[in-house]
């Protein structure tokens, strides 16, 4: 091999090798980081809420990433915030937690019971830098990731021995969407007409109400997450 007789030549030859990239994508990493940051800030803001906090980043990411055998895990701690919207989600989650431990959504027979208990839209969520941050991360990175993740299995697990309150994905996403200043400002239909609704763009933030009525659901909404949702079917194919 050339250059092996001089130390610097050998060094340079080694340097030419490029380390491989992590298999986790930027989108997924950003989602995890945003989620972690939001949890950390919420935890710091709370006092004596009585909840334990387990940020299951690895499990969640592996679940999102591993095709075929994976699932999606969501344990939400925003639920113990004093906001009325969050309290609503919390109550819904408690109702849901009276059910058996695990809600699995197999590929053949989608079951979205968890999503059906939290359909009431959130009204208020305190604006904080963490939730704002997370909203940004989700809009910019996670939504495109979802659209490209249509072949992943979806598994929602709830562990009653863990004090972490479960909130389903739909409600969680809704809470996040509520925090964004641009949310509800303009309907996606109007924006689509203007031709500025592009994947990965900030302007892809959907209007919740409009999407509920939409015949072509693009994102996670109560309507699209229903038992016979085509979105779920697409997602778990």
């Amino acid at each position, binding site marked *: 091999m*050339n250059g092996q007789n001089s130390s610097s030549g050998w060094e340079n*030859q080694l340097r*030419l090798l490029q*380390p491989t990239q992590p298999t986790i994508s930027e989108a997924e990493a950003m989602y995890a980081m*945003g989620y972690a*940051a939001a949890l950390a800030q919420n935890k710091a803001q709370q006092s004596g809420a009585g909840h334990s906090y387990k940020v299951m980043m690895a499990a969640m990411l592996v679940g999102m990433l591993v095709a075929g055998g994976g699932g999606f895990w969501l344990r939400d701690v925003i639920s113990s915030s004093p906001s009325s919207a969050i309290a609503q989600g919390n109550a819904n989650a408690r109702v849901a937690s009276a059910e058996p431990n695990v809600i699995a959504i197999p590929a053949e027979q989608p079951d979205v019971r968890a999503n059906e208990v939290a359909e009431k839209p959130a009204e208020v969520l305190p604006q904080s830098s963490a939730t704002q941050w997370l909203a940004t991360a989700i809009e910019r990175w996670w939504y495109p990731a979802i659209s490209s993740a249509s072949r992943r299995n979806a598994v929602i697990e709830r562990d009653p021995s863990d004090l972490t309150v479960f909130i389903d994905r739909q409600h969680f996403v809704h809470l996040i969407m509520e925090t964004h200043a641009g949310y509800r400002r303009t309907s996606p239909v109007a924006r689509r007409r203007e031709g500025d609704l592009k994947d990965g763009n900030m302007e892809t933030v959907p209007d919740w109400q409009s999407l509920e009525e939409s015949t072509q659901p693009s994102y996670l909404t109560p309507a699209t997450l229903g038992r016979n949702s085509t979105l779920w079917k697409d997602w778990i194919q």
Partner: protein
Amino acid sequence: MIDANELASLWRQHSARLLIIARAWGEQGEDGVQEAFVALAKQDRLPDDPLAWLVRAMRNQMLQWYRAGKRREQRHKRDADTASWFCMQREIEDGLDARLVTSWLNEMDEAEREVIVMHLWGQLSFRQIAQVTESSSATVHRHYSRGLESLRKRANGPKVPQ
């Protein structure tokens, strides 16, 4: 709180470097990289030297896993054992075989491998490495020179059968 764009930029810039450094420590690297970035996201402000901060956070986390006796799943371990640490670069004429270099690195002395990987591919200075490993710059430099020599000997020795 650190800006999302800033974190995204750091991920693009450093994640591959961190991954190879994590691999040099013998555990499944991706978990370590994720943990380091998640820890960074929780910081109120960006550290002065984000790369060194991330390496330290990752090292501490991996040491913690090691001490707790937690091992990665066998499947992951197997993947880590067989996967090349480098991209295959067929376009570089007379370039080193990525898998071969990976196997040489795996066979090296741990302290030398750590320094070699952090300096050559992690692009950390000897001073930064000394801070991370809590040793002196002279020790780091010594490990580096020995490691480089050790790699060269392996390269000049008999080839591993394909």
